[in-house]
């Protein structure tokens, strides 16, 4: 017999469950179905089930693995730098931000800009003939790196991502750092801990959950990067800046390979789910320890 309270809870949760089923469940099922089918724009309503052919095609496509490698490299590198830089800024600027909280709003402005707009902005800013950065470099040094040339483009897109999203990490760390109780620091001071030692032994362990959260969010965001890179340089010469989402988009819309594109998206979803699951389990174990 179901308790009245449980029945009530289920009833209240029904709209949310239906909403999720409709908006997430249906596209997911459709996505999986199409990924196992021979399908094109002409046969969207009459796809033919074809087994795992699309998955085999994707897994044997060198461009897919290049995209995986790009996304991983980009995601890990940018997440690491953003988290390290965000943490450093949060600690270093803490006295200033405590005294003048409005500065935080100023520092977090970049995250309010749409990534596609960011790409467009840098497309202009880095152009050799109209961009301010190359202009001043030519004025002062007689030369300028070609920021979007094959040798530079990976580092350029990383720096753009880092500039935009480090403020997000800063925001998280600032809130976590400010919420460390004053008496904890006071107790550490009473025990003789100072500066780096207090940070290393007291503050950092207390910031670890935030650090893990920031790293996971930024890693996911980095791996699924699309708009700013696509607007800035497209898929890159020879596909050199093709992230997984760009691979999926170009295969689906430009290449008309709907089945393989959706198979790639299913693989991406499985990998993301597995990664998240493992990360959360590790976090749970750590919390339980």
């Amino acid at each position, binding site marked *: 017999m179901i308790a009245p309270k449980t029945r009530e809870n289920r009833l209240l949760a029904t709209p949310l469950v239906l909403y999720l089923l409709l908006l997430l469940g249906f596209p997911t099922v459709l996505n999986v179905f199409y990924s196992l089918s021979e399908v094109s*724009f002409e046969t969207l309503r009459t796809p033919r089930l074809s087994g795992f052919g699309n998955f085999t095609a994707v897994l044997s496509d060198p461009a897919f693995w290049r995209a995986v490698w790009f996304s991983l490299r980009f995601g890990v590198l940018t997440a690491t730098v953003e988290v390290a830089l965000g943490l450093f800024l949060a600690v270093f600027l803490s006295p200033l931000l405590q005294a003048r909280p409005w500065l935080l709003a100023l520092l977090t402005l970049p995250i309010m800009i749409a990534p596609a707009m960011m790409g467009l902005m840098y497309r202009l800013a880095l152009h050799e003939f109209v961009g301010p950065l190359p202009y001043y470099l030519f004025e002062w040094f007689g030369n300028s790196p070609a920021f*979007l*040339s094959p040798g530079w483009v990976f580092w350029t897109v990383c720096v753009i991502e880092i500039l935009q999203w480090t403020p997000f990490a800063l925001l998280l760390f600032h809130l976590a750092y400010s919420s460390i109780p004053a008496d904890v620091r006071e107790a550490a001071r009473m025990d003789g801990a100072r500066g780096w030692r207090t940070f290393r032994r007291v503050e950092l362990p207390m910031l670890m959950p935030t650090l893990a959260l920031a790293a996971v969010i930024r890693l996911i965001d980095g791996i699924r990067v699309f708009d700013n890179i696509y607007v800035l340089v*497209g898929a890159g*010469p*020879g*596909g050199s800046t093709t992230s997984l989402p760009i691979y999926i988009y170009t295969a689906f819309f430009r290449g008309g390979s709907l089945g393989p594109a959706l198979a790639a998206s299913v693989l991406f979803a499985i990998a993301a789910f597995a990664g998240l699951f493992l990360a959360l389990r590790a976090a749970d174990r750590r919390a339980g320890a």
Partner: protein
Amino acid sequence: MQSTTISATLAFLALATPGLAEVTVLGWPGGPEETALRAATEAYNAREGLADADRVELLFTSRDGFYDKLAADLAAGTTAFDAHQIATYSIGRYAPFMTPVDLGPAAATTFGESVLATQQFDGKQFGVPTDLSLHFLYYRSDLIDALLADADAAARYTEIAQEHLGEALTPKAPDEWTWRDWAATALYFTKAVNPDSPTRYGAVLQMKNLLFNIMVFQSLPRAYGGDWTDEAGKVTVDSEAYRTGLDLYKMLYDAGATPPDSTGYEFAEANAAYASGQVATMVQWNAAAAELTDPEKAPTVAAVTATIAPPSGPEGRFTHVHSLGLGLNAAAENKEGAQRFLQWLATPEAMAIYARAGGAPGLTGAALEAVVGERPDLAPLGEYASQYGYVMRGGTSANALAIYQLQAAEFTGYWAGTESLDQALADTTKGMTELLAGK
């Protein structure tokens, strides 16, 4: 009071409802094509005796990803529009969701057969060609005149040509240029090759991994006899013609004759580079002419910029040509009304309005004469299209866009040095074979 309210409500609804029987047309947004289509539509709607069911209402979405969204809409059997934008290279992709259109007898005299053909697929007319796109060679007439008048400069030019192209070429007038003459000129006007050059770069190549850039490139291999397939349908891009074209681009890029981040350049970036006055030549879409010859928009180069058809090769002079146009949605709710609008658009009267409002139709005969006084740039457009225009075999097939995309990925990889020429051509051949077979 109550009846007044009801009457007012009914009147409001009558005005606010966009007319259930109207013809809805999805246009190409955000450029001269939109302005021109709006002007033509206004004139059409103002015609005396036009039935309510034939009034045209225009719809525009964002230009970014326009064709991708259109593909998804058409595949879903949308009835949101009766007629819609199409382009030569995407007709094959959309043809299954479209109805061929009868443009009437006036169309051939307005556009000429070669321009009409740019909106045909499988022998059927799928659209009215409203705007023609092809390529011009833009060059700095002041620089070329100075080069031709200076014997010392000519000697240096020959030295550079010998060193980089293995041939002692001499400076020529642009209308005599082969692609190798153009390359020699580009090298001569490059600071990295010739420190005395008045410009930093001799050319600006659009090498971004983007399908439209391959359309700009492929007039070069075409001049050497290149084609996508032979008559039997076998893919032929791994040919001397393509190798020559790809190598010439690569040589210019490696020599520094084009900006080093050209691998990220498309239409806008190339125009900005040329307009800065630091570039001597550029193969570019005709759409750039208005901007680059306008003293307000390009003050440094407007007065000294000249245009001509792209250089020639052993097989002749060629320019890629395609048209934008409007065709019928197979699921249209008002197909008859849309058909009548498209027929009217194909008349000299409609095209005169369209051209005067900034459109770029490829006109011929009396239709051209009626507007050429106000739009002199339309004369070479029609002339180049008919004399030098070509469409590659398979260039309007269902997977034409995917083929351009494949070539863009592979060719830019070679230019940027991320893959070898043999690998790029082998991958292109393999991919094209599958795409042309409909896989």
